């Protein structure tokens, strides 16, 4: 692995007396496929919120490539290539899938600044949006309002919206949340198929998926990084077994 794509240095955050991030150190090498796991309430989504700027840390720095982005607004981080998806669908219910992704592309190319030309005149933007939808096999439903799309398709659209921003680092918050188990592997195959130039960190509860698609695993407990290692190291780690994985690891070992 070569240079560092995203790093957190000594991140702290608390709400009153509740500590949600405590001295978090994190390093994602470029092109990595990392999983972030931990029991409910261990601060996984909070960590994504901190890194993408939706929350401000009390102290600590966030580095994208070599630049300090701690002070940047969420949209500025997106423009620099740090992009996330949401655990609970955060889509545009009355826009169609094509309109949604075209919007995201137009935000990137700054076409959104023009208000005197028709959207349909933006050939390149529309074609790019269509290509993204096509890569995720969403073209058959791309003219349907998002709220009428099947739930699994909406999960894919979450990823399509992120792809439209041309991310260099992608933080996926439970991309398969709510998707039936037998289908979530398919969804992860789509994620695994993303260009290796994109660095990916994903939150996932299903250990089987974590083992199949992550090269390294970070375990978060009570807002702290408990341990980091390869899936096999994590599986063998007695600490991890003790606090979190006891039953799930047993299942994964069989699977």
């Amino acid at each position, binding site marked *: 692995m070569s240079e560092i794509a995203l790093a957190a240095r000594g991140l702290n955050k608390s709400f009153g007396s509740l500590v949600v991030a405590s001295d978090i150190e994190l390093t994602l090498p470029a092109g990595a496929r990392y999983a972030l796991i931990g029991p409910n309430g261990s601060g996984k989504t909070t960590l994504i919120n901190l890194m*993408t700027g939706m929350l401000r840390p009390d102290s600590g720095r966030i580095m994208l490539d070599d630049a300090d982005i701690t002070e940047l*607004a*969420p*949209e500025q981080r*997106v*423009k620099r290539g740090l*992009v*996330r998806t*949401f655990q609970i*669908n*955060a*889509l*545009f*219910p*009355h*826009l169609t899938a*094509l*309109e*949604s992704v*075209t*919007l*995201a592309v*137009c*935000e*990137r190319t700054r*076409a*959104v*600044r*023009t*208000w*005197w*030309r*028709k*959207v*349909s005149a*933006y050939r390149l933007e*529309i074609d790019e*949006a269509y290509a993204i939808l096509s890569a995720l*096999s969403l*073209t*058959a439903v*791309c*003219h349907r309002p998002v709220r*009428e*799309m*099947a*739930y*699994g*398709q909406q999960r*894919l659209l979450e990823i399509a*919206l*992120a792809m439209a*921003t041309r991310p260099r680092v992608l933080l996926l918050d439970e991309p398969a949340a709510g*998707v*039936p188990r037998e*289908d979530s592997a*398919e*969804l992860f*195959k*789509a994620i695994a198929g993303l260009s290796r130039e994109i660095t990916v960190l994903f939150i996932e509860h299903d250990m089987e998926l974590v083992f199949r698609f992550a090269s390294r695993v970070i375990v978060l407990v009570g807002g702290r990084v408990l341990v980091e290692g390869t899936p096999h190291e994590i599986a063998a780690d007695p600490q991890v077994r003790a606090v979190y994985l006891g039953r799930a690891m047993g299942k994964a070992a069989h699977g």
Partner: protein
Amino acid sequence: MIPDSGSRLSGAIMRPQDPASAGAPAAPRDYLQAQIRWRWGEIVFWAATLLPFVLTPSYLVLASQIATTALFALSLDLILGFCGIVSLGHAAYFGVGAYTAGLLSKWGYSEPLSGLIVAALAAGIFGYLTSFIIARFRHLALIMLTLGLALLLQEIANSASWLTGGSDGLQGVHTWPIFGRFRFDLYGYTAYTYSLAVLFVVFLVARRLIHSPFGLALRGIRENATRMPAIGAVTRGHIRTIYTIAAAIAGIAGALLAQTTETVSLEVLGFQRSADVLVMLILGGTGRLYGGPIGAAVYMVARDQFSGLNPQYWYFWIGLILIAVVMLLPGGILGGLSSVLARAKDKL
């Protein structure tokens, strides 16, 4: 949210499409182009705006006021219907436009078209300045803020009576003939032609705007403002832009009223005007561009008729209509119409 049939992530969407649906979706650009096409209903609407010339020539003065108010409601629709900014003080920009046009005329320059442009600029600048406050808030806070701004402005206009004439209104407003040829007549013939033409031109601009990439971003803000930053959108910048544009259009509407009635009073800045336009827009249906004009027409014709029937208690009937529309047609008149049409289509 989740449709019950096919709610699973079916295998088909992860693999190459099945042949039945593969050819179905229209080419993306054609599809988006088709969204923008003029519909029959729109052509009928604009044709109907010419009917007062033929059917009710004695009501052209009212028709002119309706066209002016329709323009005002259209400007509110741009921020409320397309961006979710609830305003109870939109009359502030209407009033700035009205006083700008009125003062220009009082100081000796009464050319109507350039008067509109100057009024639009003045209201637009005021809109731009206030947009920095507006863009930082949402929902209920906006109602209070916009209301507060309009009240402030009205009291400033009231106390600056050396400029505005205070509660006596602005005296000495006249309007030169349009293009130096068409005089404003007692019957409102010129006034309605003029107001309707301005409404139509501004409507075309607004229609183009909402079908532009910027318009798409506005719909994105309405649909999910918190998601927008996550796709790299500078939401506040978008809100400032549309707020400024809406303020300029409201200013044009105000200037139209000043020019066609040749009076400006403090009422142009009043709470009543802000509340009325909001009611008209909701009555017609928000986020459809036509809701404002249709709501303005229905509301003002009803008010005219009811006050003729019973000069004392006519607000009773207005109240009854409002309650009926909200209860029976939650999306306003246009929302109701479109759901009726959708149901009829399903039956065919």
